């Protein structure tokens, strides 16, 4: 019996070592860049990191990333000037673009359509909401004052849940020493990415919940959408009060179909500029999102870039 247990244990270790080697040989374990909080309490990627991001549940999307000196995934260094025209795209993972080749990012498409007469800075970071975005712009006021046009991506149902900026410790906890140690194993990173660990996490979660409280969970109370919409609108007003908002320069990028009419009316009445990308993205004849997740594919990014280009042209009055 002892022999059997020893044998199983030994084989187990050897399997892990062999699988770790195979994962590295076939480059399945994603390179995870490190996060940090800068001097202005803005959460970013540690500058200077390079590697390969892999997305899709079979890791079929293999994209090189480069974190610039400002802490964002871009091959541009963000150095706004008075003389040149600069455009900023501020948003979450859709703008960050770990799932897209940089040469085909939304920003690059806009630059191409202006034949490089302007530079587009993509301030994208997975998980950013409106509080993160306005706090970033407030903290780097000097830079943003030099930037000529700013487009801020907003998903009404997700991005207005906070009325002020606070550091997201849950995201930064991913930088704990334990997590950093675990990141050394490409096999573990791969297993986490493909959801292999999820059943274990879920099992532990269910067991903990069972031990803590055995009572059946009460049904969630009915959602009062109107109340939630009002709360999100109040959060928006609060964020604007706290961090400021340049109505002349800033344009919101949003999907009107997924946005509360209350909020749209508010934007119209208060002269906030916005671009509705939902109409074109949701009703396109060709797919606009990736097959394995909901981020925009190349065609989806082209639609967004075209919309921004059109808006820029009307403002800059530039000829094609």
């Amino acid at each position, binding site marked *: *019996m002892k022999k059997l247990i020893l044998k199983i244990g030994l084989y187990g270790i050897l399997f892990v070592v062999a*699988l770790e080697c195979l994962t590295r040989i076939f480059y*399945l374990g994603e390179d995870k860049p490190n996060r940090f909080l800068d001097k202005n309490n803005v959460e970013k990627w540690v500058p200077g990191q390079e590697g390969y991001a892999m997305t*899709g*549940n079979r890791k079929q999307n293999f994209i090189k990333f480069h974190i610039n000196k400002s802490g964002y995934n871009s091959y541009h260094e963000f150095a706004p000037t008075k003389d040149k025209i600069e455009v900023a795209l501020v948003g979450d993972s859709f703008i960050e673009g770990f799932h897209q080749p940089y040469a085909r990012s939304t920003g690059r498409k806009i630059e191409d359509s202006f034949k490089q007469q302007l530079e587009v800075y993509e301030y994208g970071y997975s998980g950013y909401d409106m509080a993160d975005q306005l706090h970033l712009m407030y903290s780097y006021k000097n830079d943003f004052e030099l930037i000529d046009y700013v487009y801020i991506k907003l998903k009404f149902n997700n991005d207005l849940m906070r009325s002020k900026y606070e550091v997201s410790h849950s995201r930064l906890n991913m930088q704990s020493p334990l997590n950093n140690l675990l990141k050394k194993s490409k096999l573990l990173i791969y297993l986490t990415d493909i959801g*292999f660990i999820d059943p274990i996490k879920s*099992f532990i979660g269910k067991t903990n919940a069972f031990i803590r409280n055995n009572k059946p969970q009460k049904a969630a109370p009915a959602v009062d959408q109107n109340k939630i919409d009002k709360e999100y609108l109040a959060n928006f007003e609060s964020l604007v009060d706290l961090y400021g908002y340049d109505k002349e320069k800033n344009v919101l990028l949003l999907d009107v179909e997924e946005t509360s009419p209350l909020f749209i009316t508010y934007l119209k009445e208060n002269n906030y500029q916005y671009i509705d990308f939902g109409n074109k993205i949701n009703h396109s004849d060709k797919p606009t999102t990736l097959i394995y997740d909901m981020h925009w594919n190349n065609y989806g990014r082209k639609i967004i870039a075209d919309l921004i280009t059109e808006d820029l042209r009307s403002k800059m009055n530039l000829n094609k």
Partner: protein
Amino acid sequence: MLFNSISFAIFLPVVFILYWFVLNKSLKIQNMLVLVASYFFYGLWDWRFLFLIFASTLVDYLVGIAIDNNNENLKRKKAWLWVSVIFNIGLLGFFKYYNFFADSFIDMFQLFGYNITSTWTLNIILPVGISFYTFQTMSYSLDIYYNRLKPSKDFLSFATFVAFFPQLVAGPIERATDLLGQISSKRVFSQNQIIEGLKLILWGLFKKMVIADALAPMVDDIFTNYSTYPASTLILGVTLFSFQVYGDFSGYSDIAIGTSKLFGIELMSNFKFPNFSRNVAEYWQRWHISLSTWFRHYIYIPLGGSRVSKLKSVRNICIIFLVSGFWHGANWTFIFWGAFHALAFVPVFLLGRNAIYKDSVVAENSFFPSFVEIGQLLLTFAIVTFSRIFFRSESLTDAFGYISRIGSDMSYAPYQHPLGYRMTDYFILVLLFVLYEFRMRRDERSPFKFKNKYVRFAAYTLVIFAILLFYDSGFDRSFIYFQF
């Protein structure tokens, strides 16, 4: 609880350790543990249906004793057998076939112009594994009736035999003459048997998680949208389904057999490489063997088997194939599937070629099959695969729609994977799988038969790696045969 789930990965070692290291003092305690574990295993699906298993166990336990007590009185003996048959078939009939009969009855009336509103159908859930354990308990009563077995006086052993968790929900359907004896006797801890079991579990997981689960999205897509695809895609779809259903069910059986070995119990083989069959008769000697054996023992042979006139033998063949089709599901598609196999089997039988490959494998004494054998394999595979159109389609309309589409739109268009993966990966995967199985075609119980231990280790590692590579967290991983 699914074999390919985290709960099973925790459940199995816990039961294993308790079985061999903690509660190993007596056979009764070990059996009690297995019984409790089996009820827990089943109860996680739906504890309400545990009473059905218990009822089936109790009825057949008592009927077995009653049949034996009336050995001298044939009438009463027969009457007790009917109690078992009616009870078990009644369970099946109510939970599995009631709605089918009610709907077919209504359809028949509507065919003659009578409009009946369907208020007879019931909202019943099909208890998982009911077709398997009812057949197993029925076989016990039948074996006692035919004096092949003495009834068990040990209710605990008998209940464990009925509910034995590795094979409870999808077989192999064991006969009491094989399994009950093992459950009633002391088991010996055997390191070799346990290692063999672990290897079979690993191979079964590979077949399920890599072959079956990887092919499922394509098969689902093609069968759902068959009316939009050309013949080339439809042929691809049903071919992939052939591999999917084989990987799924034989994978399940391997895990069941492997898990049983961990507890010192041997189950019968359920699959012996059916894809390498040289005719349809050989296919049925290699596919779902436990069910074929059941039908042969308890229906075909009592009907006279092949020892009656040719005409009656043909009738017997047709009966077992139709019953087999109906056993699979309460749908006309399965009855057509059975009928199609009967049609394919009868010529082989009439030509006297139904048993010629019974004790041999393809390329018996050579490395490569001959050209004739290759032709035989391809023809058999094509026949069996064609029949699967009925097996996989939701309705007869869909099945015939699928077939007529193959006939009408005979064009070629490259198929795109619904999730955007490269199709070449899957073609290579299936090809390698076929080649590997061909290599091991003589022994279905030894999937890693390599003399060199380093090669063996590399094979284990590659199989685990493939499981990780093809694992898809967003996919329903239940087994196809659970629906039966």
